[in-house]
């Protein structure tokens, strides 16, 4: 499938989901759905760096929060429509990603992961001490009840939900394009063996910077509309541990090598968490994430995607090969 076709197909899927929400006449669908979609974007963003290049980012929450706080700043300086804020949030977090990339260029494996953790702490401390955005006191972002688009009064949450839907489709499309392009090919060589990749002519440092930037930008975009969703933004909730955990757990559970993995992981785990919140309703919620994560990495190292491949009995080549050469040589 060509990328534009892919995009259109998924926009249609998104439209159906949205129409379904309208049919339900139920705000809960939009609120819960928003959270799940937000995780789709976040997990997809994380996976571009973590899944494609194999660099584990523990600081997803910081990127998410930078997007959210960019919106808070804009809200105070010059209120803009949310779609623009998403772009601004993407730029800010993309730049943070680029900076992180430069700072950690020569770090590999666990050192990189620890550096991202440190970066998150430093950024959170900066935000906590920055009174303009509310500091540790938090910032109130009062959203209107409805949005007037061409005379139509659209409930604000439906607007946010629709934006998140479109953003999710964009993120998936970007992830898929990257994955199937020369760039994605290069990312995969970095994941497998960086020294060998260099020897094959892959400019690994430049590619890593592109991955940190792109991944950061997507995660920032996921965070940009968040202040309008939550209404009251505090550093501790913007930098919430759940973002760091979920953005890692979701791709790992879904499968990290393809754009489908984070999507599956985010929908499965995100929905499960939403359901658990209103059913089991206790610390068990966190236990589910922990058990699923550990269970999956032990039993199904390639996530749900890997299980599907196994179930369908796909040949080894189909699993490992991006392009299978069919003609007999």
């Amino acid at each position, binding site marked *: 499938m060509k990328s534009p076709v892919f995009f259109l197909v998924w926009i249609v899927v998104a439209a159906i989901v949205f129409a379904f929400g309208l049919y339900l006449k139920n705000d809960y669908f939009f609120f819960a759905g928003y959270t799940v979609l937000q995780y789709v974007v976040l997990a997809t963003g994380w996976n571009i760096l973590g899944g494609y290049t194999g660099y584990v980012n523990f600081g997803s929450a910081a990127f998410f929060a930078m997007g959210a706080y960019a919106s808070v700043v804009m809200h105070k300086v010059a209120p803009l429509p949310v779609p623009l804020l998403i772009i601004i949030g993407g730029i800010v977090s993309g730049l943070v990603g680029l900076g992180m990339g430069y700072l950690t260029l020569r770090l590999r494996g666990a050192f990189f992961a620890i550096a991202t953790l440190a970066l998150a702490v430093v950024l959170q401390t900066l935000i906590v001490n920055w009174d303009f955005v509310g500091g540790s006191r938090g910032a109130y972002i009062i959203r209107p009840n409805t949005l007037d688009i061409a005379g139509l009064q659209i409930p604000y949450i439906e607007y946010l939900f629709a934006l998140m839907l479109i953003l999710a489709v964009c993120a998936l499309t970007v992830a898929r394009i990257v994955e199937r392009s020369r760039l994605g090919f290069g990312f995969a*060589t970095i994941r*497998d063996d960086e*020294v*060998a*990749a260099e*020897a094959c*002519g892959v400019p690994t440092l430049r590619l890593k910077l592109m991955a940190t930037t792109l991944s950061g930008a997507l995660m920032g975009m996921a965070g940009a509309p968040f202040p309008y969703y939550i209404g009251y933004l505090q550093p501790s909730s913007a930098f919430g541990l759940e973002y760091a955990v979920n953005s890692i757990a979701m791709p790992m559970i879904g499968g990290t090598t393809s754009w489908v993995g984070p999507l599956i992981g985010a929908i499965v785990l995100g929905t499960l968490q939403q359901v658990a919140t209103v059913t089991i309703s206790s610390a068990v919620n966190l236990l589910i994430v922990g058990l699923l994560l550990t269970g999956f990495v032990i039993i199904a190292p390639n996530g749900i995607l890997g299980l599907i491949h196994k179930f369908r009995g796909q040949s080894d*080549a189909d699993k490992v090969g991006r392009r*299978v050469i069919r003609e007999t*040589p």
Partner: protein
Amino acid sequence: MMTAASLAQSPASSSLLEVEGVGKRFGGFIALDGINLSVAPGERVGLIGPNGSGKSTLVNCICGTLHNETGTVRFDGHSLNKLESHERTYRGIARSFQLPRPFVTMSVADNLRVPLLYAVHTRRGRHLTIEEADARCIELANSVGLGAKINKSPKDLTQIEMRKLELARAMAADPKLLIADESMAGLSDSEVGEIVEMLIKLNESGITIIMIEHIMRAVMTFSQRLVVLVSGKKIADGKPDDVIRNPEVERAYLGQ
């Protein structure tokens, strides 16, 4: 398709690779101590030395995996000192690794495709079409006898096949200079013969080759010239038969 031979036509300079006073230390340990080495286009050079003599460090300094602290590495008349590893690959240096380092999540074909999409692509400044790339992958795989395994995972390959993949991938970058770092370790006698034959064939197509090896039979069959490193210093350089009779070389090998 452009042949490797046509690429190997080097400009005016008489030597393809020029290593001048290259030094490298790790902490207090001197790995390379002012190495000088010059390799002419089309030459087959064997590089030997005991373990820890600095052979791999020298290869890494030439390929850019490590950066030398003193001296200069020149290729085709240009200094490589400030270039990253991948930029040296564009210029025409390719290597195989001592321990094979295939991209394990990719098929054999995709392993071969990486240098095509990066090194060759960048050098040419244009995309290879899918068909061109596929054709070249098949050609490369066939040339090392991996044609039947083209869609397999590297994990399914035997040790010699892994070595062959390593060489084929290096060749995919269309190099002028190939550095084969212990391509035969752990192989049987017949397999060693097979690889040596392959390397000689490549050289005959115009590619300059430096071979690092412990297996003396292979070294003696292959090399037109032999260079010996001991404790980070070059102690001999010349015709293979002369070099192995050099008393200093004998001492270095037998004295330990």
